[in-house]
Structures are given as structure tokens and as C-alpha cells.
């Protein structure tokens, strides 16, 4: 897994682009720079360029550098929903959640995108946080941020929860965190240190800062009323006990927000920045930290490898992954080049062997025998082979003929001629003797196709016979074939 040195987070918070670069070093964090743009005409591309991020389509510098870039998505248009599912596998949970989303949401499934995150199993049930948004809205956002190729798109409210935990003395208890902007307020329910529900209220610091007393009273009441509704929506039964943390830059406006909530019976308290473990190149005040709370929170999330964020953009945005530099040996070009060299070498070696081989053999032969001698040797050898095929071993034939017969058989003639069967004739005293002789010849090595004709001499009672048989391959018409 890749180790990132720093993270750049860019958000559009309170109609203002904000960006920070955060570096993690030895367990502490350092803010390398912060940047904001109040220009009404500013867009994501322009602000990313201001933050020295590459926005050219062909540029790969960011992907190649050691810093990652993340973009924050404002969750104003996102609906969060909490549900419980039985302890089943991820695929089953996915199906259950899809079904719930289809039944509960007013939009058809093809128009929405959802992300879910399961909590730990408790009493056989599993709490699941679902975030749902319109696909069109998300696609539009992706179109805006694609130019600077963020590695992730994170939800702003998750960044708020993260910074509360890290730099506003947050804890793992169930709590509500309020992040108040100039015109809106993010209300985040935190369970086990993770966002489990969120709502954006359209009341901000500006509404509390009015000097008109009546208006302020009305705002305070409306805010308290909204908060109670939100807590009801979150399913919080013990609203008086549930801690409500109001992120603060230390100004009096936040004290009045907390007071109004306390008056409404809520367990509200101010959460001021605790900058232990946070460094900055330039001196940063609580106001600065508060102003950049969302991008810092997102950068913290990006640097935290164990974060299991709600990725609502999973199917819509595939970030540009850094091309892992492989060893040059794996390069197809190098492989092709090596293969070509090997082929060329093979051809050269074959060529050299074929060119020099015969000449070296000739030289060695010339040294031992002349060319005439060589040809003579070849001819002689060929002739000897031919003669071998032409020369029958007639002594062997006589021996076989003799050994196959028993006493009492007298042979009168033997005739051998190449291309014809061998013929023998003689006399025997009985048919049994003759048949045994015939059988023995048939079984003798080199003898085949034994035929016998016999006549009995009436006077002498002797049987005269003539036998023919093939001896090896000499009985065949041609004797050229090899034995």
C-alpha cells in the first residue's frame, strides 16, 4: 500500500472554496498551507489551480507526487438514514439496503446513488448508516472536480466528525456535533466515533449575529425547535442527556448558540479547538482552525488509512491511480528488445555454425583423408551394404535343413535361386516323420511358407517328397530391401 506524505483537501463550504494541505509526521500533523477564495465567480478548476494542483487533462504530476488530493462534497442534498439489519453477510446487507432505499425514497433506483456502512454487531442486530443522494447531482459534482483528479471524494460531514474527534477533544461516546457556518449548520450524530446521521439546517452564525432582539429571539427559538426535530429524526429518546457539541472558534456567537440550546433543555456545550499535535508553518489561530475545519477534517480522513468512509461516489468516480513503477525488466519494450537481440544472436550463431561447420569438417577430413579417398570410402561402404543384402548364408540354410529332419530322412536334392522358393526333395519312411519335418522347418528361424507334396512308392513303401519354402528374403523377387 502506498504511503502518502501529505493530503490536500478542497471543499466548497459556505459558498466559499477552502483548501488545506496537511502533513502527517511522527504522529503529529502539520498544516503546510491554507487557502480560500471568496470570489463569487470561482470554480473548482480555478481554485484547484490556485492551490497549485495540476488541472491539465494529460498531466500526471499529482498522481506521481507524494501528496494525495481529496475533494469534499457538501451533504446538503444528501439524505442519511439509520436502520438495523440482522447479522448477515455484506451481499445480503446490500440487498436489504437496496430494497429499503427503493421502498422509502421517492426516487426510482436508477436516479439515486447510495452508500452504506455497518456498525458492530450488537444483540444479533447490526446498525447501518445509509447515505443517499441524487445521481444527477453527484455526476455534476464529479464533472466539476474531475479536472484536478482527486483520489477520493469525501462527505463534508464526515470531515466535521473527524476534526471534532482529533482537534476538538471529541470522544467515542454517542454525541451530536454542530458545525455552524455563516448561513447553515451541519448537525451530525456520532456513534462509536463515526458519523451515523446528519442533517443540514439553514440557520447559521449570521442569523445569530443580528442586533435586532426580536429576530434573535425568533432565530434562537426556531433553532431550538429545529434541533429537537432533528434529534427526534435521529431517534434520540434521551435528548436532555445526549451531549451536543457546538464546534467553536471561541467567539461569543457560539456561546449564545450553546445558551439557546441549553435553554431548550439540551445538554449543549462548546467544543473549542485543542491544537495539541497540530503544527503549522504560519501561526494559526482558533478562528483559522475553525474556518478550515471541514478541509482539515477531510485531510485527516484521507491520511487515516483505517477510515471506512461512506463512498457515495463509488460507482461514479474512479480516481486516477498512480501507475506503479515496475522494474524495467517488466517493460514490454525491453522484453521485445531482448527477444529481438536473442533472435538476432540465434540467427548469427546458426549462420556462423552453418558457414564454419562444413568447412572445418572438410579441413579435418582433408587432414586425414583426401577428397578422393573420402568419396571412395563412401562408395565402398555403400557397396558393402549392398553386398550384405545380396549374400545369402547357404551354410546356415544347409544346417537348418539338416537339423530339422530326424534319422531316416534322406535328402536327394536342394535347389536355391534368388527370387524363388528354396526346394528340397528326399525320402521318408512315414507320413508322421514327414509332417514332423515339415513342422520343424516351419518353426525354423528364417524359413516361411513351407509347402510339401508327397508320393508313396508302391514297391519300396517309401514316401518321396518335395518341399518348398522361403528362406529369409531371398525368395522374394527383389532383394534390394533391407533385412
Amino acid at each position, binding site marked *: 500500500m502506498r504511503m502518502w506524505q501529505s493530503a490536500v483537501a478542497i471543499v466548497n463550504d459556505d459558498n466559499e472554496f477552502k483548501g488545506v494541505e496537511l502533513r502527517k509526521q511522527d504522529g503529529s500533523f502539520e498544516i503546510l498551507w491554507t487557502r480560500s477564495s471568496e470570489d463569487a465567480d470561482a470554480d473548482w478548476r480555478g481554485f484547484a489551480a490556485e492551490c497549485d494542483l495540476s488541472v491539465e487533462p494529460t498531466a500526471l504530476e499529482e498522481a506521481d507526487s507524494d501528496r494525495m488530493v481529496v475533494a469534499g462534497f457538501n451533504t446538503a442534498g444528501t439524505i442519511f438514514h439509520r436502520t438495523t439489519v440482522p447479522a448477515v453477510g455484506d451481499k445480503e446487507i446490500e440487498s436489504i439496503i437496496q430494497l429499503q432505499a427503493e421502498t422509502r425514497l421517492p426516487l426510482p433506483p436508477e436516479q439515486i446513488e447510495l452508500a452504506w456502512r455497518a456498525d458492530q454487531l450488537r444483540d444479533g442486530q447490526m446498525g447501518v448508516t445509509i447515505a443517499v443522494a441524487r445521481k444527477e447531482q453527484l455526476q455534476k459534482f464529479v464533472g466539476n472536480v474531475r479536472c484536478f483528479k482527486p483520489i477520493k471524494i469525501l462527505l463534508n460531514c464526515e470531515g466535521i466528525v473527524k476534526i471534532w474527534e482529533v482537534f476538538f477533544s471529541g470522544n467515542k461516546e454517542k454525541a451530536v456535533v454542530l458545525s455552524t457556518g455563516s448561513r447553515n449548520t451541519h448537525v451530525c450524530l456520532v456513534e462509536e466515533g463515526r458519523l451515523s446521521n446528519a442533517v443540514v439546517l439553514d440557520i447559521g452564525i449570521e442569523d445569530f449575529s443580528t442586533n435586532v432582539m426580536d429576530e434573535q429571539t425568533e432565530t434562537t427559538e426556531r433553532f431550538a425547535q429545529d434541533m429537537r426535530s432533528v434529534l427526534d429524526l435521529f431517534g434520540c429518546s434521551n435528548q436532555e442527556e445526549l451531549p451536543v457539541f457546538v464546534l467553536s472558534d471561541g467567539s461569543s456567537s457560539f456561546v449564545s448558540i450553546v445558551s439557546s440550546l441549553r435553554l431548550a433543555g439540551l445538554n449543549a456545550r462548546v467544543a473549542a479547538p485543542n491544537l495539541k499535535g497540530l503544527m503549522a508553518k504560519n501561526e494559526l489561530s482558533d478562528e483559522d482552525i475553525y474556518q478550515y475545519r471541514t478541509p482539515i477534517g477531510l485531510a485527516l480522513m484521507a491520511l487515516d488509512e483505517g477510515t471506512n468512509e461512506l463512498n457515495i461516489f463509488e460507482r461514479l468516480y474512479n480516481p486516477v491511480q498512480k501507475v506503479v513503477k515496475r522494474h524495467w525488466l517488466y517493460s514490454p519494450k525491453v522484453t521485445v528488445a531482448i527477444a529481438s537481440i536473442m533472435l538476432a544472436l540465434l540467427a548469427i550463431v546458426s*549462420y556462423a555454425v*552453418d*558457414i564454419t*561447420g*562444413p568447412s572445418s*569438417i*572438410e579441413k579435418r577430413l582433408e587432414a586425414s583423408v583426401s577428397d578422393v579417398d*573420402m*568419396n*571412395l*570410402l*563412401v*562408395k*565402398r*561402404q*555403400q*557397396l*558393402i*551394404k*549392398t*553386398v*550384405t*543384402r*545380396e*549374400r*545369402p*548364408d*547357404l*551354410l546356415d540354410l*544347409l544346417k537348418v535343413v539338416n537339423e530339422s529332419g530326424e534319422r531316416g530322412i*534322406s*535328402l*536327394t*536334392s*536342394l*535347389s*536355391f*535361386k*534368388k527370387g524363388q522358393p528354396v526346394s528340397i526333395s528326399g525320402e521318408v519312411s512315414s507320413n508322421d516323420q514327414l509332417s514332423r519335418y515339415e513342422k520343424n522347418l516351419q518353426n525354423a528361424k528364417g524359413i516361411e511358407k513351407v509347402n510339401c507334396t508327397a508320393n508313396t512308392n508302391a514297391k519300396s513303401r517309401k514316401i518321396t517328397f518335395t518341399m518348398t519354402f522361403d528362406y529369409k528374403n531371398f525368395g522374394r523377387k527383389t*532383394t*534390394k530391401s533391407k533385412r
Partner: protein
Amino acid sequence: MIEKLSKKDIRALKFGVIGAAAIILFVFGSAGHKRWTKAKANGAVLRTKLDAIDVDKARQAGLMSIVPVFEMPQVEEEQKFLFRDKLSEQLKRAGIRNKPLQVQPGRKSPQSGYKFLLVKCNATCQFMQVLDFLARLNENPYLVGIEELKIKCDPKKQGEVELDFTVSTFAL
């Protein structure tokens, strides 16, 4: 200077270089290929010759048992004389008194480039003499093979046989 060239020019230059390399390769390659082919053919001829000469020991021993001595064929007249002379000597050595040997042209030669000559012989002799003759016949360096052999016994004349045989030789 190369900076002034457009991408199109550079591409054209690349094609030019590749074309030139291909032409050079073709010219030298075809000459080399011819030389290679010739060398391979020479090598194949040499290998065939070597294969013909270089016979393994067992096979050579087999050949030697059938053809223990061999002389290369001479021109027809000389070969006739040599073969007949040697054959007469072998018959004499076996004690066979034969009728005059008859030389005649044989069937188609089993070895191209050589004539095939036959020598016929008739004799009356003892069977043991026949065996002795046959046992030593392979020592004739001009002999190719025995084409025909007839042995006829007369039961009235104990051990005497009539022998007719035809042997062959090669000649140039």
C-alpha cells in the same frame, strides 16, 4: 536544427531511416542468405557422407561377419579375370574339380553405376567339399552373392553330389 522540424518531418525522416535500413538489410541479407543456403547444402552433403562412413561398431561387426573382405570393382575384363581366378582357387582349395567356369551378364544390377556379372559353375564332388567351399566362399573379395545353388545326391554313389551354382560380382 532538429527542433525546427515539424512532427510530420520527423515522422517522414523516421520512415526514411527505416526504409534505408530495410534496403541495406535486404541487399546484404539476400547475399548472406544465399551463402547460408549453400553452406547448409554443403553441410548436409558432408553429413550424409559421414553417416555413410561412420557406422557404429555393432553394425560394422555385423557387416564384417557377412563381408569379411571386399575389393572395389574393376573394369569388366579385369574384374572377370580376378573373380574367376579367385573362385577357381577356392574350388581347387576345396578339392572340387569343376567344369570350366562360364561368365555371363546378369540381371539388373542392385547397385547403380556397376555392372552385374554372373559366373556359373558345374562340378561333381563330395558333399563335405561343398561345405568346405561354401564356408570359405566369403573370403572371395570380389564376390557379391550366390545367385543360385543346386545340390543333387545320387543315393547309389555314397557322398557324391552334383553341384551347380551361380555367383555374382560387380564390375565397372
